[in-house]
């Protein structure tokens, strides 16, 4: 029983890491319909800013995390105005080529600035080791990740489903011309949504840095995880990637505990089967 609960917890914690690094993509790709493969770039940058502030300036972890999130969101806003704006309505191939190009450029820049090595991160003492929780000894860092993940999904759900800002975004995504004609400033709205997506990516990069190491190869190395979560979740919904990430985290963790000899193949086989069954992601199953 203890084993089952521990595995459940590890699965959710791992899913939460996947969710935190992918949730930004579900905003830019899922809501704004831009195929933004360069999502990892913003996560990487958030990670770099967090780690650099901590290691070189002694900034506390949470403050460094917030700084990374805000700085990258500002950069996202600027990039949206300068570059991404031109991609709305262009073909998916154009968007893919553009964002892959951006990955290569930013990986090279990161390498010049921080070197090719992975950045070590030392978590603050209150996130190290284990805590007693419901009679179980659980790793503190993972528990904090789970807490963060739930806070983020709650915040996003509230933001998109219950505020005027969210309603405007949903309206703009559904029908841009109509939204404009009722007086919504769609340009500004998309820039803000994009900044939000990149800020979330940076948050995920910083929070997950202890598990997914920050190095110039980050955007390409983990692109598969972002895409799996968004593909299994399906587009156009803010809660679906959350369910998808938890599902993948649980399945992968259970496999590694009970069937370690299957190795890395399992997760891909799992996604394969899910997508054959539900080509548009798990939201399709919920709708039907």
């Amino acid at each position, binding site marked *: 029983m203890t*084993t089952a609960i*521990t*595995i459940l917890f*590890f699965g959710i*914690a*791992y899913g939460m*890491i996947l969710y935190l690094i992918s949730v930004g993509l579900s905003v830019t790709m899922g809501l704004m319909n831009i195929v933004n493969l360069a999502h990892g770039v913003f996560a990487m940058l958030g990670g770099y800013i967090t780690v650099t502030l901590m290691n070189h300036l002694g900034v506390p972890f949470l403050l460094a995390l917030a700084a990374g999130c805000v700085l990258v969101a500002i950069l996202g806003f600027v990039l949206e105005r300068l570059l991404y704006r031109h991609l709305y309505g262009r073909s998916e191939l154009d968007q893919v080529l553009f964002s892959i190009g951006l990955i290569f450029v930013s990986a090279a820049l990161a*390498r*010049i600035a*921080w*070197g*090719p*090595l*992975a950045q*070590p991160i*030392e978590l603050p003492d209150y996130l*190290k*080791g*284990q805590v007693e929780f419901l009679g179980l*000894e659980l*790793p503190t*860092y*993972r528990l904090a990740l789970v807490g963060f993940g739930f806070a983020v999904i709650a915040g996003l759900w509230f933001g998109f489903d219950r505020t005027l800002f969210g309603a405007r975004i949903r309206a703009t995504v559904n029908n841009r011309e109509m939204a404009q004609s009722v007086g919504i400033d769609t340009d500004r709205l998309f820039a803000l949504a994009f900044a939000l997506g990149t800020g979330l990516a940076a948050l995920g990069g910083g929070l997950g840095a*202890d*598990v*997914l*190491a920050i*190095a*110039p*190869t980050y955007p390409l*190395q983990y692109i598969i995880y972002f895409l799996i979560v968004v593909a299994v979740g399906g587009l156009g919904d803010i809660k679906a990637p959350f369910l998808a990430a938890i599902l993948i985290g649980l399945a*992968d*963790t*259970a496999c*590694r*505990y009970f069937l*370690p*000899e299957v*190795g*890395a193949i399992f997760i891909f086989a799992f996604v394969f089967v899910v997508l054959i069954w539900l080509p548009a992601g798990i939201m399709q199953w919920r709708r039907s």
Partner: protein
Amino acid sequence: MGIPAMISRRLFGIAFGTGAAVLLAGALQAQAQTVKIGVILTYSGRDAALGEQIDRSIDLFVKLHEKELPQGVKIELIKRDDTGVNPDLAKRLAQELVLRDKVQILTGGQWTPNAMAVAALTKEAKIPFVTMTAGGSAVTLQSPYVVRTGWTLWQTSYPLGEWAAKQGWKNGYTVVSDFAPGHDGEAAFTKSFTENGGKIIGSVRIPLKTTDYLPYFQKIKDMNPDVVYVFNPGGPQATAFMKAFDDVGITKSNIKLIGPGDITASDELPNMGKRALGVITMLQYSPAATRKANVDFVAAWKKEYGANTVPNYFAAAGWDGMRAIFDVIKAQNGKIDPDATMKLLRQWKNPNSPRGPVRIDEHGDIVQNLYMRRVEEKDGVLANVEFATIEQVGDPWKVLNKK
């Protein structure tokens, strides 16, 4: 910024190798004998830190010993990046180095899968290949043109199994990275541990690209063995392993962690912190060793790369590899004959390596002392402190499988 400078130096090296050398070679050939050495290492990605250790060792050796080369003999290093475990790329790079750049000696060989691919190629190309840190036993069997200056996993794990069993530990568990050296380490430890009365109650192989180790380690904790044999290829992965052991609470339990020295690599100890205290490992090199050759080596390293950098066992293997290459160049006065070179390399010895006395045996494998070390805190700094020595160990696998 040291690293950008290093990159530009490397880029210059590459540019020099492919472009300028072609132009200059003709003009200079009359006066100078240039020996071209192809170096294939991991210069980018998660495990670039390990490649950097070897690369720095090579550069430092050349800088300090270039003047020892015979009159008119020069060496030229042509460096290539294999980006990690990637045998196809390593093979292609080796092909280009041999066919286009006309290198006379190949070296590097950081990863076993890559070294296997390159070694297979040297059999046809007849190019001597000094593999520095690949630890899979089979590498030196791939071709008569390969020698190894690093270590094998059998070397560091076979004696360890016996030692562990003699501590009275009955139940063992093995957890290794899922690639050739990991399989070797698992087999070596299992064999000697069970031969000496121990029992393996579980084993797991973790894919190299894994980022979340907790499920594997939770299972170990649930099985509650006396001792866990661990292998990973060192570098950032070693720290990730140690953090995960700590996260599931194994470091604070009665379960002992042991393994080859990779798992507590000295350069990663500061990142691991106190989690690593008490872990017992077996390895051929520790920068904390006090023999003179090592003290000089570490001092030269710190002078070149900064006081807070430490050469690890990858660096020591690269250092001896370069020493061997220099010795065969000197012995042949810069005219490299592949078969004569291999004959020299298979008899090569160095009584004064930073690791102590080393030599290469008839299998092309290194024979060296192995040291038992425990992670301890000395003056507030973590170090692998040596507490026992096993003299002059060859590759046990070759000995056990000798017909």
